[in-house]
Structure formats: structure tokens, C-alpha cells
């Protein structure tokens, strides 16, 4: 099941999207990438993934709005969302958690940190199921 886990990343920065995708694929995940908030929300609603990695500063629709959208729809409500952001202030972090984020990764991070977080939240989902 873990090997087939599907991760949706919503990330506008091309380089980061590439390295994250590469990192997760190497670890055996299936990765879908959205380049802006609107696209991310559309993909998530269309084909709900097992986990979502969400940037906050995004074109078209910012990360908070996407998060709100995800948490307002029944088919996506349960999906754990890990917010990834360069914003490391208390305000941004607590806002993200208040909107329903499962985790918060401060950029920059290393592949180890990313994989640990993704692994931990997916395991949580699996256990719940």
C-alpha cells in the first residue's frame, strides 16, 4: 500500500517541484505535481491523493485558500496536508494548523526531513484506515 501511495505536491517553483518529485519517486511514491493553487485543488478534488504537500505562496490561489478548499470538501477533508513554506513565523504556522494542516515543513529542508514527514503522516493514515 505504501509503495503505491499517491502524493500530490502543489509547488510553483520548478526546481523545487523537480527535486521533491525525484526524492519521493526514489522512495517509491507516486507523485503528481500541480503548478498553482487552483490546479492543485482541482486535481485533489478530481482524484483525491493519499497526501498533499502544499506550498503557501502560489499563483492564482494561495496555499491557505487551497487548504480551506480541501478541508471544506468531503472527498478531500481527510487527506493529510503538509504545508511547505519559507515562512517560519509563528503566525503563518498557527494559521496553517488552524486551517487544518497536518504538518508544517519550513523551507529549506533536506530529503531526509521530507521523507520522514511524508512517511509519518502516511503511516498515520494507514493506521487510521
Amino acid at each position, binding site marked *: 500500500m505504501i509503495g503505491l501511495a499517491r502524493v500530490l505536491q502543489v509547488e510553483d517553483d520548478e526546481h523545487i517541484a523537480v*527535486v521533491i518529485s525525484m526524492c519521493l519517486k526514489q522512495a517509491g511514491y507516486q507523485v503528481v505535481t500541480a503548478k498553482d493553487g487552483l490546479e492543485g485543488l482541482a486535481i485533489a478534488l478530481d482524484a483525491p491523493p493519499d497526501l498533499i504537500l502544499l506550498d503557501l505562496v502560489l499563483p492564482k490561489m494561495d496555499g491557505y485558500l487551497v487548504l480551506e478548499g480541501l478541508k471544506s470538501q468531503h472527498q478531500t477533508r481527510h487527506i493529510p496536508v503538509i504545508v511547505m513554506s519559507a515562512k517560519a513565523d509563528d503566525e503563518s504556522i498557527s494559521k496553517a494548523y488552524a486551517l487544518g494542516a497536518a504538518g508544517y515543513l519550513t523551507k529549506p*529542508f533536506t*530529503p531526509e526531513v521530507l521523507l520522514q514527514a511524508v512517511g509519518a503522516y502516511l503511516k498515520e493514515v494507514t493506521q487510521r484506515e
Partner: protein
Amino acid sequence: MTHTLRQRMWYSYLILVLLLLAIAAWSILRIISLRDTVSRMISENYRSIVAADNMVAALERQDSAVLLSLIDNSSIAADIFRSSQADFLMWFSRARDNVTIPEEATILDSIRAQYDAYLLGYEQIRGTKLDRAYPSQLYIDQLYPKFTAIRQLCGRLLSVNQDNMLHSSQYFEHTANGTAKALSLAAVISIAMALVLSYYMTSLVLNPVARLTEELKSVRKFGGSVEALAPQETVNDEIQALRAEVIGIMGGLQAQLRRVQTFLSEMSDGLVVVDTEFRIVTMNRAAQEIFGLRQKPVEGIHLLELTHSERLYAEARGLMEKPGGPTFKEMWFTVPASGGTDRRRYYLVRITPLTGPDRRAEGAMLLFNEVTRLKEIDEARSKFVSIVSHEFRTPLTGIAMAAGLLARSSNDRPAKEVELLNIIREDADRLNKTVSDLLNLSRLESGRIEMHRAEEDLGQIISAVAHTFEPQARSAGVSINIEVQPALPRVWADADKLALVLTNLLTNALRYSPQGGSVTIRASTHDLQSVLVSVIDMGPGIPEEYRETIFEPFTQVPNRRTGGAGLGLAICKEIIEAHGGSIWVESESGKGSTFRFTVPIAKRGQ
């Protein structure tokens, strides 16, 4: 010609003294004249009366002697007659020497004439005494009438003198009464004059004083200028001199006050002075502009009504209620954008309690220094730092991830490439740390980082932080010693922030420690309110000139291996000060440094 008050008073007294002298002289003269009247009365009349009495006595003895000679023919009678004759003549001559009244002389002349006739008659009797019947007849016919006449004359002399004496006594009484009356009158006049003079002199001094008082009162009441009271006349009177002096002093003070008022009103900082009831005593133009109160009377308005700031009021009250406390307090104050002003304005307020000579609070002075521009610059800087940091972090994420991914598949890679990959990762990490420090410092400085304080076990925090440094210390050959006082009180602090402080201090301590050295972390109670934490290293120490500045951002001691942008200690300082503690360094060049900071002890119920 005007005279000085002293002169006028002197003249007045002189008049009074002269008057009293005249009365005294006149009284003395009167008393002397009365004494003369008495002595004249005694000397003149009394002697004549005595003489008249004695003359009568002598005459009666002579008469007795004549009668005796008629009976007895012995010589005894003749002897008595002669000796009495001598007496009579002696008293007669005394009376004669003491003639004071014109009538006396005529009486004495008659007495003399009668006495001569009497003596002649006596001789006749002596010559004819052989015939018994005859001498008796002769005595009755001639001698006796003469004797009676003389006696009557003597009686007359007596009564004349007695009358004169009575007259003199009446005169004396009259004169004495007159003197008494005159003296009483003089006394009454003197008293009246003394009263008039006293009144005159009192008003001489008091009237100008009262006038001056009135003038000064009006200046005080209506706030006029003392120059308006410029002297009207030439100054040659003490009160006028005093007035000129007072006006001079007041004029000087008013001029000085006007100068001070000018300074205050021209001052760009807002100045508000409140009394102990926190009611506005005065405020300058700048302060009126700050609060939008141009042209409105502000005196008496409460500080809260003016500023709408509970915080400001609380600070001012705190300062005033502790007379021995701090001499001033600085705090931020903002005025929201409103009506006339288009933007929020920031002020640095300095509150200074005003104390009287007895050190009791008399009010407070609030100085509003506008720092809006600085604040805006500061905000722009913070924003800039935030944006820049964000822009750094995004590419850093790419670098860190890419290098990390490459390193993960490094099994089949040459060692050189692995080393290069590690350099990329470590430098990405370092750059990231610098960006974090910048962001943290910027937020700490602007007060945007909240301290999540709770009762914390400092020993635990120290152990946890020290633990994370163990691998690093081991590889550097440095030992970390922890000395925490047993039963150390809990501190009131944000554990994460304190850990950050300890992390920064330990990073520095390890960085500069020589191989084989040690780093000691010590914690003990400092005083009743705080705990002292010391981080002691055996590094090269810090030159004295840097001991203050190393806590400023971007400060580094030259010629040292550096590991950052010089932000670590600045962050420590911000965090410790936000906790109400202080941080400092003690160092001896070549013998290591000791960084110390204090953290408040948690109070029960906090």
C-alpha cells in the same frame, strides 16, 4: 524735593522730641517758681510774725516790770525792764530788716514812735516815785495807753503778715493749679501729636507697601508684564527702591520664563506636564498638535482623556508612586491615523516624575519624541529582510534537496564528489542559518516574536541543549561540564527561546575552544528575583573594546574564525532582554570568556 522715608521718620521724631523738651523745660521753670513762692512766704511773713509775737511778749514783760516798780522800790524791776527793752528792740530791728509789705514800714514807724514815748513815760514815773499816789496815776494816764497802742500796732503787724501769708498761699495754690492744668494740656497735646505722627509714619511705610502688594497681585492675577509697572518717579525712597528691585527681579524672571516658554513651544518634541492627579498642567504647541488640540484650553484635562492610553497612564502612575524608583521611563506610544492626519504616528515617550524639594512627587513630565519616520524605516527594513529571506530560502530549498538527493545515492560515487556534495549541503545549511538569524533578529527587534513564557526547569533546558552538542564536542576534543545548583528555582521563560540562547552561546564556546579544553555551563540563583547562567570557555577571550559591541548585530572580533554573520549574540541579547534579564561577558584575553545572563525566577501563581 522728596525725602527718604528714613529722613521723614527722623524729622517726625525730632519734632516730637523737641515738643517734649519744651514741655519739660516749662515744667521745670514752673516748679522752680512755685518753690520760690513757698520760700518767700516762709522767709518774709513768717519772720515778721515771730518778731511781732516776741515784741508783744517783751512789751508785756516791761509793762509787768513797771507795775512791779510801783509796788517794790527795788532795782529788780528796773533790771527786768531794761533786759526786756533790749529784747523788744532786738525783735523790732528783726522786723525792720524784714519789711516786705509797704504797710509794714508805716506800722513799724508808728511802733517806734509810740515805744520812744513809752520809754519817756517810764523815765517820768521813775523820777516821781517818791510820791506814792502820783506814779500810779501817771502810769494809768500816760504809760498804759502807750502800752496798749504798741500792743495794738504789733497785733496789726501780725495780721498784716498773716494776711499776706494767706494771700501768698492762695497765689501758690492758683499757680500750682495753673501748672497742673498746663501740664495736663501739654501731655494731651503730646499724646495727640505722637498719635498723629505715628499714624503719619505708619502710613508713610504701609501705604506704599500696600500699593506695591496690590500691583504685584494684579500682575500675578492677570498675568501682566511687570515692565508695565515701570517706576513713575525718581527713586529716592526706600519703598520705591524696594519696588524697583522687586520689579527688576520679577522682570528678569518673566523674561527668563518667556525664553523658556519660547524654547518649549518651539521644541519639536511634544511636552505634557501633569500634576499628581494626572491632570494637564501645561503642554507645548507640539504636544497640542500631536493630540489635535490646537487652540483648545487643555489645562485640567485628565491624562487618560488626552492620550486614551491606559498603558501610558499606568506607567506614569507607577513612576510617581515610587519616589525612590527609576528617574524616568521610556515607552512606545502610537497615535492612530485620524481626521487631520493620514498615517499612524509613532512616539517614544519619556516619562519623568517631577519631585519637590522634599522628594515628594509633584507630577510628571511626558516628552513625546516622534519616531514615525524611524519606525517606518524600521518597518521597511523588516519587510525587506522578510522578503529577502524568503527569496533566499526558495532557491536554498532546491540546493539542499538536490545535494541531499545526490548524496543519498553516493554509494557508487568517487570520494571527491561526495566531499564536494557535503560542502554544498553544509554551506546551504550555513546560509539558511544566517537567513534564519536575520529573520529572527528582525522580528525580535520589532517585538513581533511573542515569548511563550511558563514555569520552566532551567536545568532540563541546559541538559537538553548540551546533549545536542555532544557529538560536536567529542569530535572537537572539548568536554562540556554542567554545574546546576541543586534545587534551582524554576524560571519564568520561553523554553525554546532560552534553548536558542544557550545554543548560540555553546556554538561560540565550542567554536573557540582549544582541543582538550572544556566548556562549563553553570546555573545558580543570582538574587531573589533571578537565576544566573554562565557559559565559560577556555578560548582566546574577547578584547575589552569588543565586550560591549559583540552584542550588536553584525559585530565580529577581527582575526577570528567566524561561523556566521555575527547575529547570534544579538539574538541572545534580544531574547534575554525580552525576558527582563540582562546579558554580558567577562573575559580576560588569552584566558577564555564567560558569558553570563540572568533569567527571572517564576513567582508563585504566575
